[in-house]
């Protein structure tokens, strides 16, 4: 099943919301820069950078890929590792 809206209709409907979200992100990074203290080594910043970079790719499934950037990995051997029979 596909979306009923055309691409121009989706852009028309969502442009201002997308613009606002990008601005909010930009303002958050500016706020981090103005604040005292350092977070350069915080792994969450690297996750954010990776996710923002991914947004510019043209591959489908960006939302799923962004989710995976912020997810712990799954080990198929988890039962042995945790000792669950």
């Amino acid at each position: 099943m596909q979306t009923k809206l055309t691409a121009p209709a989706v852009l028309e409907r969502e442009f201002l919301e997308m613009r606002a979200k990008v601005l909010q992100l930009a303002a958050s990074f500016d706020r981090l820069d103005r604040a005292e203290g350092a977070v350069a080594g915080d792994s969450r910043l690297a996750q954010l950078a990776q996710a923002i970079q991914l947004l510019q790719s043209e591959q489908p499934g960006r939302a799923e890929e962004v989710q995976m950037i912020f997810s712990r990995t799954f080990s198929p051997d988890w039962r042995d590792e945790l000792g669950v029979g």
Partner: protein
Amino acid sequence: MYYFDPHIHMVSRTTDDYETLAKMGCVGMSEPAFWAGFDRGSVESFRDYFRQLTDFEMKRAAQYGIQHYTWLCINAKEAENVELSREIIAMIPEFLDLPNVLGIGEIGLNKNTRNESVIFLEHMELAITHQQQILIHTPHLEDKYQGTRMILDMLRGDARLDRSRVLVDHVEEHTVRHVLDAGFWAGMTLYPVSKCTPARAADMVEMYGPDRLLVNSAGDWGPSKPTAVPDFVLEMRRRGHAESLIRKIVYENPLTFFRQSQNFQFTPPDVLAESPVEG
């Protein structure tokens, strides 16, 4: 449009919320047992909670024409206490024959620990032994993907389980495909910040189709919106989707899933309206 909220925690909501939900078209709901915001200390606390779910809430909902159902368990967060969990699992069968009990839930994982997994498996055993349906909570944020995969691993590991009688809730873009491909039902929870928005839920319907998909508000004591399902309905309408498709997701799918429970005796509102009023 009538709708059924398959996952909402009404013990945390006011009677005014029941009235608002009824005005917005909610005719039925199911309420899984969950974490109260603090860890309870004894099996008697849970016995009282289960009485509230199986008696008081059903009556409170009925005042507004809403048919209330429930699920019983010890939630994943408190399952870290294995001793208490086992006492509660042993007590649950006292309640399974009550008229609004649909099954065991919401069981699941929280931080994906050994103890949570052990109690999840013991809940599964309880459900299978008593021919109960299962409603499953998947973890939050960074733990969701790993925990969902662990849960699916445990479910698939037991050949006695009928997958069509299991609902895996709180799916998002990175977990929905795994749940549906394995033959389970999937629930999308509409939350203001975490979990899923109405727009992203509509995206998943467009990508995966409407079969075995549900949407719920999970309205509870935290930041949540009990009227989130009507928000989803509006989003689908604004995108031009057919009323029949929307109705399938918010009304027919929940009924199809819940009708597999022996205690689900839902009366559609149009049938209720033709019944004589007593009193």
